[in-house]
């Protein structure tokens, strides 16, 4: 072998070894890689936004008031845990949030914690041996939190990633910290819990009961809106006044439904998820967002005029890239709220 070639090969080997060493020094454990705004947020009656942002994998809860001033972190987690969801209490005096471990393979557990927004105290409220993925208050009943709980975290095949399964709706009575299951569905997937003001039901989405008996059928199954009575009983499809094939949704006090569905497929073959509004009385559904990526997690302001939502600009990629927007519900341009411009 010629000397110059030998030198070139040696240099490539050295560059590879140096890069491997740099990788060893610079890489972070999986737990510490999460960075920036998450999709978890809520808006209080006075328009204050509570949101979760990550710094080197550790979650922190921050507040953004109407004047655009940020406060926080009010509470947080170590890098081994994630804040799955948070919700303002109906009077806006406290924040409740659910914490899960990032590594769910060694066992499931969840903690519901409360931040008193006046005193700033952070206290544990409830611990669970399952995975609490979402929580929500009913405006009619400030003493109860409703939550979605997964019983297992499994992969249904060797190459598929593990996901939470065996979902049910539960309620947590804050006065005595007792819990009760409102459904006994052990659903494959369950999302988007919400309790419209004045309603006697808890709403959520899951795959149609008869459609996805086996994992491979989930490709053809559609997610439907279901309702479960607050007093417990049979969960049933929400009915004809609700949109079909819905991933995320929000029932407004006037009966209209904001929902997330696939608007179209992008040139690169990715679904584009957008928010639409459905009139229960009929008529054509109106498209609200035009992100051309992924819009979800709708939240409505107390006066019903402003819609808040999350966009993931790296949807379909590895790590999400979240942005929080607000827009007038009856039409108008969306304004980026977070990260602040």
């Amino acid at each position, binding site marked *: *072998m*010629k000397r110059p*070639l030998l030198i*070139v*090969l040696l240099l*490539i*080997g050295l*560059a*590879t070894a140096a*890069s*491997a060493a*740099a*990788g*060893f020094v*610079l*890489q*972070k454990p999986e737990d*510490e*890689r999460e960075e920036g705004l998450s999709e978890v947020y809520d808006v209080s009656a006075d328009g204050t936004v509570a949101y979760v942002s990550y710094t080197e994998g550790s979650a922190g809860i921050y507040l953004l008031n109407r004047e655009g001033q940020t406060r926080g972190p009010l509470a947080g987690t170590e890098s081994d845990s994630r804040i799955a969801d948070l919700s303002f209490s109906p009077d806006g005096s406290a924040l409740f949030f659910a914490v899960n471990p990032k590594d769910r393979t060694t066992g499931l557990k969840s903690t519901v914690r409360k931040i008193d927004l006046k005193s700033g105290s952070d206290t544990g409220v409830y611990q669970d041996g399952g995975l609490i993925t979402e929580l929500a208050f009913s405006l009619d009943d400030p003493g109860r939190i409703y939550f979605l709980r997964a019983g297992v975290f499994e992969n*249904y*095949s*060797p*190459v*598929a990633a593990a996901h939470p399964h065996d979902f049910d709706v539960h309620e947590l009575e804050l006065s005595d910290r007792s819990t009760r299951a409102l459904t006994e569905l052990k659903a494959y997937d369950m999302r988007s819990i919400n309790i419209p003001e004045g309603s006697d039901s808890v709403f959520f989405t899951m795959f149609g009961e008869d459609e996805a008996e086996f*994992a*491979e059928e989930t490709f053809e199954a559609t997610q439907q809106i279901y309702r479960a009575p607050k007093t417990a009983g049979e969960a049933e499809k929400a009915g004809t006044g609700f949109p079909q094939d819905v991933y995320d949704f929000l029932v407004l006090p006037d009966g209209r439904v904001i929902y997330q569905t696939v608007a179209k497929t992008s040139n690169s073959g990715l679904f584009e998820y957008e928010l639409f509004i459905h009139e229960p009385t009929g008529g054509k559904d109106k498209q609200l967002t035009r992100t051309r990526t992924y819009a979800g997690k709708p939240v409505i302001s107390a006066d019903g005029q402003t819609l808040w939502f999350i966009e993931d*600009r*790296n949807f379909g*990629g*590895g*790590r999400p*890239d979240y942005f929080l927007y607000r827009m007038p519900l009856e039409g108008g341009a969306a304004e980026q709220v977070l990260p602040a411009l």
Partner: protein
Amino acid sequence: MRPVFIRFARTIARRTDGTREERQDLTEELAGHLEETFRQLQEEGHPEVVAESIAMKRFGDGRQIGRQIQEALYPYRRGMILTLAAGSLLFGFAGFYAVLLTSWHALTAWLVLSSFVGSVLLAFALDPPAALNRRLALNSLFIFQIGVLLAGTLLTADMAGSAGGALGVAGWLLILLSLALIYRTTAYDYRTSRSKNEKHEIAINAANVTTGIFSLAVSLFFFWAALAFSDGTDRVWMFAFIPAAFWGFTYLAQAMLLNRGRIKIAYGITGIQVAVIITGLLLFFRIP
């Protein structure tokens, strides 16, 4: 002919990718030129050993001549391999640092593989080893390189922003270049000692590269699907390799038939391969 000239000519001929017969012809031709120069030098009064030495010295550097003949026989191939090697090495380092500095994840094993295959390709382009069956070695390297590039393209595809897109484009371009080199090595640059069958062998090889890409892609897709939709305890995944095995057996059968001069039957098998692929595609996409 003088043994020393035969040995010298053989070292040059071994640097070309021709068949054994072509290399033999080339060896004899080069040795003939050396012999002629040697005779002239002797006539000029040089002693035998000195004339031998001067004849070889005038002929030039054996490696250089071998490379020039190779370039004349297979134009641009060295440049294509050099481009693939350099591009793959750059892609490897760029992909590694892009993922490291955005996701803080070190793809060390992939970088080592990428550097290794890139270096071997570089060595093949700059100083091809004479002792190997170069066509087999190069095709194996190109196939391995496609796997490494595909893995890199998928690993960097998750990155947010334009860096992921640029790396994706670069990865797919390098995969296309590798495929072009496989076609070139297997079909376009193909030489055979059975000159009357050469054009048929080239056509059947080219068809098999195409059907092979389809068959392997289908097998890998079914392998992924079998794993994705089973609990891993059954052996359904083994059925996924039927398309690849079918292609392998039919290619082997065609090679044997061509050896025996059964050209029409060999083409018939290509027809069967194509018909199976078209039927499979029609069934998969449910085209009535």
